[in-house]
């Protein structure tokens, strides 16, 4: 890896930009054209504004738009505020290690698994009401309540909040680790402020710009998510993303034009939401300055509310998983019984049949998209070392773009594009679509550690064995084994959770654990749904646990072995 043979690495950023931006841009382009009536592959060649007119004349559009924006903004906002609140009371306190360990599995579990778990818990026939009936409520049949899929989207907000809270907490903790935290806390507290006050007045204003990207991704995701909203969101009308998805998959193909217009409308809405957030974040410091400097000292407030908040979130998530487990072993389980009357292993025994294909397809898609992403990311990061750092940094920001654009806004167009290249419904196309969403997260979780590697280790290694490539594997990759393993786990869980890319680009020929779980959640057999969701959650959990066990030493255990590879 010397100056002389470093230039060819430029292939990687070029290839990565191609892999990331071609689907995004061509996807948007082929969504834009149909929205103006042009979709020759289905016989529409007449330019018109009809799709747009139909979109805004549609009775559900406005309400669905409001639901999308409100549920997205509310859940992300609440998640950010509660994450900051928890952080200000728990970070690096006695409870912190425990809290981190308890929240870690929630990062790995797919959004939709948690949502289905919440449905099993909170629905009128769910576990909560079962445990209260009939002794308290008097119900011997599930009531006709809308405790999930409520028309205001509150259960959707709850599901999104529950999943984004650990994510934001984790991202904030990483950002806080880069600040001189102990010094700030010591200085602030010596001036008479309480610990939490120092957090809110001094540390959080510095943290917000550092979690800008994760926060924007959370906002864009929450406003445009389809699978979670289908499972636990309102139905009449659904959120805009779900409505658009229904139009795209409508049996009358002319709905696709309106779908395209709706997708772009959603893009515009989310764009505005993101701009408003950026504007707020930018001015927050100035607006809150008076308050930050008002000099009021509080006595330390109780940590209990923060603890309660965390406990409630964990209880909810934990119960959601437990009820799933019970269902997977249940045979007969009538309302309002707390536990099944009869148990069985049958569902799991049959799983080998009904879950084999989705399981293996999930696994294959995840492994191939993660390996591809990892290869590209390492190539790009290695190239940075041999090029103008500042310029490379600017370019690599583009990798995050697909996280800020709603999936439904460009996947339809991408499908049109891949149809032309005859890649739709094929492995390569679906792997590519997954990679578009996996790569940003792999890059995000790997980049800091990779850039922080002391390159002198490589110089020392090459001066010793004169083999750049071997040194790269035995020294650099081995020393970075842990961050690489974590990046693999992150990418893996992202791929497992993908819903729309598998459906759109797979052209219905691919079924993964996630697509099956979502399909079953609306009225399918609860036992089979439970098995599907458990498998869907276990896979990423397993990979995360393996990543936690990885150390450089374990990677190179059969050490003398590796040297015999030298010829």
């Amino acid at each position, binding site marked *: 890896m010397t*100056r002389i043979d470093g230039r060819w690495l430029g292939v990687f950023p070029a290839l990565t930009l191609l892999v990331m931006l071609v689907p995004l841009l061509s996807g948007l382009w082929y969504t834009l054209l149909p929205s103006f009536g042009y979709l020759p592959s289905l016989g529409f060649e007449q330019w018109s504004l009809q799709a747009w007119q139909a979109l805004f004349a549609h009775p559900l559009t406005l309400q669905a738009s409001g639901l999308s924006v409100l549920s997205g903004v509310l859940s992300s906002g609440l998640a950010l505020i509660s994450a900051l609140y928890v952080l200000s009371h728990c970070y690096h306190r006695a409870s912190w290690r425990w809290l981190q360990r308890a929240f870690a599995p929630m990062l790995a579990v797919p959004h939709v698994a948690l949502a289905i778990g919440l449905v099993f818990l909170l629905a009128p026939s769910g576990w909560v009401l079962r445990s209260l009936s009939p002794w308290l409520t008097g119900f011997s049949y599930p009531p006709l309540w809308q405790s999930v899929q409520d028309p205001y989207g509150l259960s959707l907000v709850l599901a999104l909040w529950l999943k984004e809270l650990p994510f934001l907490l984790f991202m904030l903790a990483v950002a806080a680790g880069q600040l001189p935290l102990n010094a700030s806390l010591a200085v602030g507290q010596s001036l008479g402020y309480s610990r939490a006050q120092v957090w809110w007045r001094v540390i959080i204003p510095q943290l917000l710009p550092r979690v800008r990207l994760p926060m924007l991704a959370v906002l864009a995701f929450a406003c445009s998510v389809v699978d979670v909203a289908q499972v636990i969101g309102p139905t009449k009308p659904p959120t805009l993303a779900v409505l658009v998805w229904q139009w795209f998959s409508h049996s009358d193909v002319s709905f696709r034009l309106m779908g395209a217009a709706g997708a772009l409308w959603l893009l515009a809405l989310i764009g505005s939401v993101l701009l408003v957030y950026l504007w707020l974040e930018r001015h927050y410091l100035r607006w809150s300055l008076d308050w930050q400097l008002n000099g009021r000292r509080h006595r330390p407030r109780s940590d209990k509310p923060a603890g309660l908040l965390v406990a409630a979130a964990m209880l909810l998530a934990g119960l959601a998983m437990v009820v799933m487990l019970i269902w997977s072993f249940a045979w007969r389980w009538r309302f309002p019984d707390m536990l099944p009357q009869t148990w069985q292993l049958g569902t799991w025994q049959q799983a080998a049949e009904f879950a084999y294909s989705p399981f293996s397809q999930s696994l294959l898609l995840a492994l191939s998209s993660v390996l591809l992403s990892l290869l590209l990311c390492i190539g790009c990061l290695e190239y940075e070392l041999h090029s103008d750092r500042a310029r490379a940094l600017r370019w690599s920001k583009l990798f995050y773009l697909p996280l800020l654009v709603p999936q439904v806004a460009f996947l339809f167009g991408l499908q049109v594009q891949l149809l032309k290249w005859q890649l739709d419904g094929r492995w390569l196309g679906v792997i590519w679509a997954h990679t578009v969403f996996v790569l940003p997260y792999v890059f995000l979780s790997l980049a800091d550690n990779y850039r922080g590697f002391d390159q002198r280790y490589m*110089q020392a290694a090459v001066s010793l064995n004169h083999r750049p490539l071997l040194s790269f594997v035995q020294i650099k990759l081995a020393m970075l084994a842990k961050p690489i393993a974590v990046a693999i786990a992150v990418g893996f869980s992202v791929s497992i959770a993908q819903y729309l890319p598998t459906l759109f680009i797979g052209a219905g020929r691919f079924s993964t654990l996630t697509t099956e779980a979502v399909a079953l959640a609306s009225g399918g057999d609860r036992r089979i749904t439970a098995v599907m969701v458990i498998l869907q959650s276990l896979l990423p959990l397993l990979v995360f646990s393996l990543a936690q066990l990885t150390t450089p030493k374990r990677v*190179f255990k059969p050490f003398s072995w590796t040297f015999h590879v030298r010829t």
Partner: protein
Amino acid sequence: MLELNQLSIRFSGDARHLFSPLSFEVAPGEVAAVMGPSGCGKSTLLAAIAGTLSRCFTASGEIVLNQRQLLKLPQARRRVGILFQDDLLFPHFNVEQNLRFALGDVSRDEAERRIAQVLEQAELSGYQQRDIGHLSGGQRARVSVLRSLLAEPELLLLDEPFSKLDKALRAQFREFVFAQIKAMNIPALLVTHDHDDVPHAAQVHALQ
């Protein structure tokens, strides 16, 4: 024999040089010193000789090591060893594995014999299986030197390798390094800003 011939370095796309062109020779077994305040380009000079110069810089002139022109060669083919301020022992390897990494393609028995031999010279007999994290600073520094020399470099570059050690250890370690260089009979180039580190009667070049 190392020869520098009108060697100078400049920022790519900038006519000014970091220091005025250098020309001198270092004989086998000899340690030459390059001195100057921090920021004068000492480490950049070493990077140019080692072959790890960043793309921001362009080197001109000649570096000749035993009749080989180094500037056009990639790092892997220069046979130039480096000792840094930090020992840079690979943390995921133990002592023996670190040393083994520097050895060429030799049999397992031969490797074990040579590693035992050099460890004995450094008064580290029996340290083969020690974890790097469990060595003292002085021990790590010595293993690091042994590792550089096991790769049989034709030139050793010393990038302030003594500056992080405490005073008592420092003199001792310095003598160890110079003795090893003498025994190997290779030229060595030391950059430092501390006169104490320069061996007696060594040629000293100031960067300016």
